[in-house]
Every structure is written in structure tokens, then in C-alpha cells.
């Protein structure tokens, strides 16, 4: 193979060439494999919980073990899977490609992010092996700082370190998008995926440090034996909750905005149309990031927060629904009279929209004070955020992974299997989590391993759904790995998509482009459709 034809995968295959790489594409792949590892551990914890909940009695695990299971599941899924999922894997891989750059602005810092993530993951994993943590992923004080008899500090340290990894990722994205765009690529010619990741990065940079200091204060309090969140001394545990949710609610948008970016990319490509209302979709990402910082109090409606604060937070939470709804309407309008085809990424994206609408609307119910008092701490909340986090973000991640898989691996995944897995996931997901809405509405509390017998039927349905969902996740794992070796070789632009990342070969060369591209048009400039919504002949020919 001549030097000219080498791609980023064939430029070196030693372990060292991977562990010391500063190539954003390789770092993206390092992240992909590491987050899959954590996803698997967290999924096993979820599976154990679902098996326990098959029967009303606590027959598989003790209450203590159950507490540790949902803590492992929450901590690993939130910080070691969802937050890095689309940004650190897909974002890392495609941002420089999409903006026509050779790499991130700070390639070494990019690698450092991965090492911080791994070191943080090591501490979290170590805390689990030592015996786990039973505080839940929220670490509420004074339980976490004074009473819990588990490895809280080590787990918090893991999250603290991984948190600095994501801060550096956010910083790198902001600087890269701001300073590294190709000639002619103005802000309003940027793909919407870039806009959504820019908004995500702002949240990463401004919210994560608050989590870091909060967990540090909690840990100092635990080590020192005295602190500011413990009422014994006059401290206020609710202050911890304010600080925690000041990070953790915006973090929810870290976990959904990138997914929305994927939707905008995929839906235009498989509807063969320009996005409807580019400016609205772009600025709704910014609006979600900004307003998202002002809604944290809706987690604390029943935590002794003043009723007037509750009302303000309730109204602000309703406001976030506006930019979110704008996106959904614009995606739907993009589909209107498009030439739609149902490749796997498109199926994922359509199920994202459906599940996000359900998750979002139930979010509005939860933002309503009286309804929240009724369903607070029940499975209704669990169902709501799983519709957003799993139904939304994981689905979008799978969609994006399939969409860019030919670019990442240079191979096509098996299309029929891809479509099948997407449908299995949609069915399995709804069967798992829809019954939980009913359970919560009927009053089943979350975080319990025993429950009243009348809830059993819904729990059995949910566990059955989880098994189907498990199959849905296993399938892509198998066929994507298979396709790396045996898949059909991908062309540079298998989807006939616009966007700079499709103008270079698959997989791209180490420096992304043989010559720096120049951009002269708006994004999603798909050839016009004729009156009955078909692609005109001219563009059909090169398909």
C-alpha cells in the first residue's frame, strides 16, 4: 500500500500506535470500546434488577445489594456511558471531518481526556469490586457523607476525574469549532450536529466543574467527619441538592442535545431534503443549553424548597419544552413530501422522535407541581427519564453509529439485520418502560426490591421487554464486529449525503483530507424533488 492510499486504520496497528495516538478518529474508537465496556457492566446490573423484580418478594438479592445494583447502573450509565457516548465517540470522530479540519485544535488534550476517563473509570470500577456504593447516583447528603457504609469517596473520585476528562473534551470542541472551520464554512453553513455539540460543550464546560466541587465537598466532609451539608452542625443538605442538580439537570441536556444533532443529520439524508427551518433548529440547541441551566429546582419540589421557587422552576421547565418542540416540528416538516427510505439509521431516528415525544410530554407532567407531588419518587419518573436517556440518546447513538459506520470502519453493516435490530429495540424498549409509567402512576416507589403483589403484572411485562431489548443491543454488537472483517467495502459516500465528512474516502486518511476543502453552499443541499416527491432523474443516476 502506498503512503498516499493509507487510511487512519492502516497507518499503524501496534498497541502503542493506538494508546499514544493523537488522531481524533482513533481516540473516538478508543472511547467507543471503553464506553461499551461500561455499558455492559451497567446493563448487567440492570438485568439483575429486572430479574429480582419479576416477583414481589425479595428473593434474588438483599435490599443492600439491590441498592448497590441501582447505584452501579446509574453511575456507570450516566457518567461512563451516556455523557461520553455521542460527544466523545461520534463527535470526536466526525467534528474535524465535518468542518474540514485535519484534527482537533488540541490533539494531545484529546488523548488526555480519554486517559482521565479511563483513570476515573478505574476508580469507579475499583469501588464496585471493593463492595460497591449504595447511595444511588445522586449521592444525597447526609446519607452519603455521614451514614453510608460503602465506598463513596472512591466512587466520587472516579466521577471527579472522569468529569475533568469531559470538561477537556468540551473545551476542545468549543475551540475546534470556533477556530478550525474550513474556508467558506460560516456558522450558518455548519451542519446541525456541530451546533448541537457546540451547545453541549458549553454545558460540559460550565456545569461539570460545579459537580466536581460538590462531590469534592461531600468527600471532604466524609473524610474530615465534619462539614457543611450535615444538619448536625447547622449545615443544609438541600444545598447539596441545589449544587448537584445545578450540574445534573444541564447534564440531562448533555445527554440529549447530541442525539438531536444526529437526528438532524440522518433525517435530511434519508428524506433527501433540506432541513426545515435551519435557524430555528440551530438556535433551539442554544436555547435548550441556556434555559437548561435555570430549571434544576424541579428535582426538588418536595425537598423543602419554597413554594414560590417551585413555581418559578415549574414555569422555566415548561419553557424548555418550547425549543424541544420546535425541533420535533421541524423534523416532521422535513419529512413532509420528502423521498423517504428506511435504512437502519432512519428507523432509529424515527423511533427517537416517537420516544422523545412521549418522554418529553411526560416531562411536562412532572414539571407540573401537583402532578409531581403525586408521582415523585415513583416509577413514573424512572420511565420518563429512560424514555429520554435510552429511548432518546441511546437510540440516537445507535442511529449515528450506523450512519457513520461506513466512514468509521470503511465497511457496510448488513442492512437487513440493522433494520431488524432497530425494530427489536423499539419494541423491547416500549415494552420495558411503558408499563413503568403505569406502575409509577399507581404508586410503586422506585429503588425498592420488594413491592405489593398487585404491581407484579406490569413488572413481568417490563422484565419481558428488557429481555427483548437485550437481544436488540446484542445484535448490533455482533454484526458490527462481523462487518469490520467481512462487511462489504464502503464507498466514500454510500448514503449520497451532503457534508464534508462524505467527501473524503472511507475510512479517511490520517489527515482527513488530501487537500483542505472549500465550502460554498448551505448544508443539506439535496437535489430538488419533483412534484410528487421523487428524486429527479439526474440525481438518481449517480445513486
Amino acid at each position, binding site marked *: 500500500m502506498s503512503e498516499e492510499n493509507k487510511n487512519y486504520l492502516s497507518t499503524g496497528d501496534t498497541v502503542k500506535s493506538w494508546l499514544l495516538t493523537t488522531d481524533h478518529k482513533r481516540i473516538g474508537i478508543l472511547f467507543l470500546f471503553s464506553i461499551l465496556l461500561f455499558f455492559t457492566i451497567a446493563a448487567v446490573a440492570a438485568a439483575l434488577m429486572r430479574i429480582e423484580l419479576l416477583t414481589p418478594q425479595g428473593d434474588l438479592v438483599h435490599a443492600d445489594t439491590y441498592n448497590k445494583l441501582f447505584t452501579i447502573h446509574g453511575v456507570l450509565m450516566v457518567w461512563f456511558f451516556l455523557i461520553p457516548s455521542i460527544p466523545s465517540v461520534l463527535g470526536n470522530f466526525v467534528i474535524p471531518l465535518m468542518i474540514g*479540519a*485535519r*484534527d*482537533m*485544535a*488540541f*490533539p494531545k*488534550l484529546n488523548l488526555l481526556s480519554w486517559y482521565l476517563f479511563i483513570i476515573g473509570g478505574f476508580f469507579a470500577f475499583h469501588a464496585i469490586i471493593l463492595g460497591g456504593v449504595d447511595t444511588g447516583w445522586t449521592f444525597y447528603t447526609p446519607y452519603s457523607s455521614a451514614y453510608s457504609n460503602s465506598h463513596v469517596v472512591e466512587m466520587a473520585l472516579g466521577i471527579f476525574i472522569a468529569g475533568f476528562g469531559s*470538561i477537556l473534551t468540551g*473545551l*476542545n470542541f*468549543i*475551540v*475546534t469549532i*470556533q*477556530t*478550525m472551520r474550513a474556508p467558506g464554512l460560516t456558522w450558518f453553513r455548519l451542519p446541525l450536529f456541530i451546533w448541537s455539540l457546540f451547545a453541549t460543550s458549553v454545558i460540559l*464546560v*460550565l*456545569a*461539570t*466543574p*460545579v459537580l*466536581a*466541587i*460538590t462531590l469534592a*465537598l461531600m468527600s*471532604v466532609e466524609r473524610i*474530615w*467527619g*465534619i*462539614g*457543611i451539608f450535615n444538619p448536625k*452542625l*447547622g*449545615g*443544609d443538605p438541600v*444545598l447539596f441538592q441545589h*449544587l448537584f442538580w445545578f450540574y445534573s439537570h444541564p447534564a440531562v441536556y448533555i445527554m440529549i442535545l447530541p442525539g438531536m444533532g444526529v437526528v438532524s443529520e440522518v433525517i435530511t439524508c434519508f428524506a433527501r431534503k433540506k432541513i426545515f427551518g435551519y435557524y430555528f433548529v440551530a438556535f433551539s440547541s442554544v436555547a435548550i443549553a441556556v434555559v437548561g441551566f435555570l430549571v434544576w429546582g424541579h428535582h426538588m419540589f418536595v425537598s423543602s424548597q419554597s413554594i414560590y421557587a417551585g413555581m418559578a422552576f415549574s414555569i422555566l421547565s415548561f419553557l424548555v419544552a418550547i425549543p424541544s418542540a420546535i425541533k420535533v416540528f421541524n423534523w416532521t416538516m422535513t419529512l413532509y413530501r420528502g423521498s423517504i427510505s428506511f435504512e437502519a439509521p432512519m428507523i432509529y431516528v424515527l423511533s427517537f422522535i416517537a420516544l422523545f415525544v412521549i418522554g418529553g410530554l411526560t416531562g411536562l407532567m412532572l414539571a407540573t407541581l401537583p402532578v409531581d407531588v403525586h408521582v415523585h419518587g415513583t416509577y413514573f419518573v424512572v420511565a420518563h427519564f429512560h424514555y429520554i436517556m435510552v429511548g432518546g440518546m441511546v437510540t440516537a447513538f445507535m442511529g449515528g453509529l450506523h450512519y457513520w459506520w461506513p466512514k468509521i470502519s470503511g465497511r457496510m453493516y448488513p442492512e437487513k439485520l440493522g433494520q431488524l435490530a432497530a425494530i427489536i429495540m423499539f419494541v423491547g424498549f416500549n415494552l420495558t418502560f411503558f408499563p413503568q409509567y403505569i406502575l409509577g402512576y399507581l404508586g410503586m416507589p422506585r429503588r425498592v426490591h420488594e413491592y405489593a403483589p398487585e404491581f407484579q403484572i406490569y413488572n413481568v411485562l417490563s422484565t419481558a421487554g428488557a429481555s427483548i431489548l437485550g437481544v436488540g443491543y446484542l445484535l448490533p454488537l455482533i454484526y458490527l464486529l462481523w462487518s469490520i472483517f467481512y462487511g462489504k467495502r464502503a464507498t466514500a459516500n454510500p448514503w449520497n449525503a451532503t457534508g464534508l465528512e462524505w467527501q473524503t474516502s472511507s475510512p479517511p486518511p490520517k*489527515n482527513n483530507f488530501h487537500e*483542505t476543502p472549500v465550502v460554498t453552499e448551505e448544508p443539506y443541499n439535496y437535489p430538488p424533488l419533483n412534484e410528487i416527491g421523487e428524486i429527479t432523474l439526474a440525481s438518481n443516476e449517480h445513486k
Partner: protein
Amino acid sequence: MKENSIVADQFENAQQQSEAAHLGMWTFIATEILFFGGLFLAYIVYRHFYFTEFVAASKHTEVLFGTINSIILLTSSLTMALAVHAAKENYRLQISRWLALTIFLGLAFLAVKGLEYHDDIENKLVPGAHFDPSLPAQSQIFFWLYWTMTGLHAIHVTVGLGVLSTMLLLARKEKFSANYNTPLTLAGLYWHFVDIVWLFLFALLYVISRHK
């Protein structure tokens, strides 16, 4: 001058590289502000909850040490700015001199802080079982914040000294000039940030309630 303005592979030119580095540092400082922000919020909340206890406690901080340290850090910001200025004017020898002086002042700050901590421990100002019994119980919250805020700040000073020492080494190798001084300028930015944080700490922990 080529060896002095090395442009990394991913950048088109030196200007783009310098812009990226500056934006990166400012973004990092934004992160740092939010990092300290949690502590400042806690201070505001508890000062509101336990005003008289905070007033009583703040009379026990050592204002003399605090004032000396404020002067030291402010002066170090000046010498830092002079180091950057020397680079921009191409006075290469002076860069090292001003940097060395800045590092010396940083060390002096830590030394004074150490003396103060020593006195604080002797005066039973560490929250916990051995806390000064003549002070109201909630003053411990004040001192808990005092220790964590100044401790976190001291960590930042220490990191800053590490950065400045690296800059000193690079300056001795004559890496900086009017054409290329981005790392030095950004190290300066960080140092000024650490300095500004101290001014807020000084105001809140030593000065604000002294005459109430």
C-alpha cells in the same frame, strides 16, 4: 524566526494556533470560575443563615498575614505582566528575571500561608472536636469554608508555580520572543486568575465583617 513559531500539524498558520490557544485558556478559566463558584455559593448561603456566627468567626482570621499575602500576590501579578511585556518587546534576558521573581513571590505567598495555618491550628480554629469552645458552634462552618477555600486556592498557586517553572525553563532556552510568546501569555492569564480569586477570598474571609 521559524524555529520560534512552530505551527502544529493541525493548524493552517501561527495566527490560527494562537487564537485557538487563547480561546482554550479563557474557556478553561470559565470552568475554573464555576469550580470555585460552588464554594462561593456555600459561603453566601451560610453567611445569610448564620450571620452573627460568621461575624464572630471572621474576627479570628489573621488579617496581617492576609494583607501581606495580598500585597505579595498583587506584586507577583505585576512581575508576571512585566515578563510577558519583556517577551513582547524581545528583551529576552528580562523574561527569565521577571519570571524568577514571580516564582519567588508565589513561594513567599505559600510560606506566609503556611505560617498562618500554623497559627490557626494553635488557635484551635480547625472545625471538629478541638474547635475553640468560646466561639459559637456554627462558626465551624465559617472555618470549614476558610480551610477548603484557601486550601483549594493554595493548590492552584502550587500548580501555577509548576507552570511558571516550566515557562522559566523555556525562557532560559530562549523560546520566547516578540513573535512567539503564547504559552507565556497564557501562563500569565492563569496566574492573574489565581490572583483575582485570592482578592475575593481576602475580602470575604478577612475583611468584610471585621468592624461589625
